[in-house]
């Protein structure tokens, strides 16, 4: 049996994730450029990924419970962002490797900030390698 692991992750985490997957012997994947909005419905600043965390460290020592959104408000960074650019990785693999791969993706991608992404696991009924005609687990 095969499963498809769909991971929607930050753009700058694609390379580390690919390296980690390579080390597990999983070279094959499909990467799509997507836009996402999570439970927060977008965000209030453009450069959450790059600019804020360093500054946030200093500020969060004084005010512990500052969310990224309220940080943006306090610092007049209120530029609402409706869609946040993300990358979607789709990997089809034998279901025996599922837990290992999911744990690996989570450990590589976790920053503790909103927007780390989601992983979806869904069943795949059939798989076929076009060049050789192999079917099923042999083809992934």
């Amino acid at each position, binding site marked *: 049996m095969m499963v498809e692991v769909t991971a929607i992750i930050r753009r700058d985490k694609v390379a580390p994730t690919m390296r980690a997957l390579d080390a597990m012997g999983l070279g094959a994947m499909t990467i799509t450029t997507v836009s996402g909005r999570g439970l927060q419905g977008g965000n209030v600043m453009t450069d959450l990924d790059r600019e804020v965390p360093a500054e946030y460290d200093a500020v969060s020592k004084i005010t512990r419970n500052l969310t990224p959104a309220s940080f943006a408000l306090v610092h007049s960074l209120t530029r609402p962002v409706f869609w946040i650019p993300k990358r979607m990785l789709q990997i089809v693999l034998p279901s025996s490797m599922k837990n290992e791969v999911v744990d690996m993706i989570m450990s590589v991608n976790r920053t503790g900030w909103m927007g780390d992404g989601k992983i*979806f696991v869904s069943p795949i009924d059939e798989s076929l390698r076009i060049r050789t005609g192999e079917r099923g687990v042999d083809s992934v």
Partner: protein
Amino acid sequence: MKMVRAIVRPEKENDVVLALEAKGFPAMTKTHVFGRGKQKGLKVGPIHYDELPKVMLMIVAEDSSVPVIVEVIKNSAYVGYEGDGKVFVSPVTEVYTIRTGEKSEG
């Protein structure tokens, strides 16, 4: 859990997203796709358009909220002409939130 994939007109994207948000489904993923339907594209005079731009919205939700989501998309993406799009529902067995490691099944 189910994944609802809606392929809609690009100009209707905002209507669909706002309608879904109003019903309490703000989280989704969007990607720009090209496709053609049963009509094999669009023919305007001598010119044949084979790949028509569409927006694909992907929403993962509990089984019980799928009918609501489909209904909302059906109403907000409707124009009444060929090319309004399709909605596909497929199974998702597990969902993980990377930030917390939280897992939901079913």
